[in-house]
C-alpha cells in the first residue's frame, strides 16, 4: 500500500559509475519531484515534473537526468558519479493543480566510494 516507493533503498557504487533510482507513486498525483538531502539533513529540490513535463530544474548538473515515462513514475539517472553526490535522494509527489502537501518516499541512500 506504499504511496510513494523508491528503489533501491541503498546504493553503494564507485566514483565514475552511472546509476539509476526509480520512483513510483500510486496516489494519482500529477506532479513528482526529486530532492537531495545532505549529511546535515538539508533538503533541496532538484527537479519537479508536472504531467511528465519538466517544470523545475534547480541548476542541477546535467549529469543528473530525470525521466518521467508516465505521471506515476519519475526516475533519476546519474552519470559519472562524484563523491559529492553521496546523499539521500527523496522522491515526492503532489496534486500539482492546487497547492498541497507533498508525499515522500523513504529515500535512497547513495554512497560513492
Amino acid at each position: 500500500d506504499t504511496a510513494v516507493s523508491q528503489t533501491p533503498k541503498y546504493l553503494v557504487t564507485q566514483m565514475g559509475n552511472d546509476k539509476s533510482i526509480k520512483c513510483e507513486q500510486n496516489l494519482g498525483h500529477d506532479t513528482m519531484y526529486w530532492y537531495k538531502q545532505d549529511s546535515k539533513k538539508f533538503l533541496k529540490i532538484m527537479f519537479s515534473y508536472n504531467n511528465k513535463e519538466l517544470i523545475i530544474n534547480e541548476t542541477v548538473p546535467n549529469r543528473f537526468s530525470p525521466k518521467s515515462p508516465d505521471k506515476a513514475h519519475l526516475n533519476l539517472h546519474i552519470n559519472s558519479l562524484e563523491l559529492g553526490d553521496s546523499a539521500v535522494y527523496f522522491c515526492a509527489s503532489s496534486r500539482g493543480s492546487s497547492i498541497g502537501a507533498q508525499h515522500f518516499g523513504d529515500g535512497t541512500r547513495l554512497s560513492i566510494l
Partner: protein
Amino acid sequence: GESVGLHLPTLSVQEGDNSIINCAYSNSASDYFIWYKQESGKGPQFIIDIRSNMDKRQGQRVTVLLNKTVKHLSLQIAATQPGDSAVYFCAETEGTYKYIFGTGTRLKVLA
C-alpha cells in the same frame, strides 16, 4: 535570497511537556506553509499546513502559528510523547511546484 531557516537545531523536551519549534522564512510572497516530521530512515511526513490568509491552524495535538508581519512560523506540539522524537522541517511554497525547506530541528523527548 530564498531561505527558510530554523532558530534551534536541537530541542530537548521532557515527556508530557509542550514543544515549540520555530521557523523564519524570507519570501513575503509565499502563500502556503507546511510542517513535516522526518523519522530516522524515513521520508518527511506531512503534519499540518497553513495558508497565508490564516494565522493559526490546529490539528490533533499540533498547532501551527503564522506571523506574516515578522515572517515567522511555529509548530506547537502538546503533551510531547517519545514518538514525537524526529527532525521537523518547515517548508514554504514558491508558486505551485516549488517547495523550499528549512534547515530542520531535531526534537528529543526525554523520558
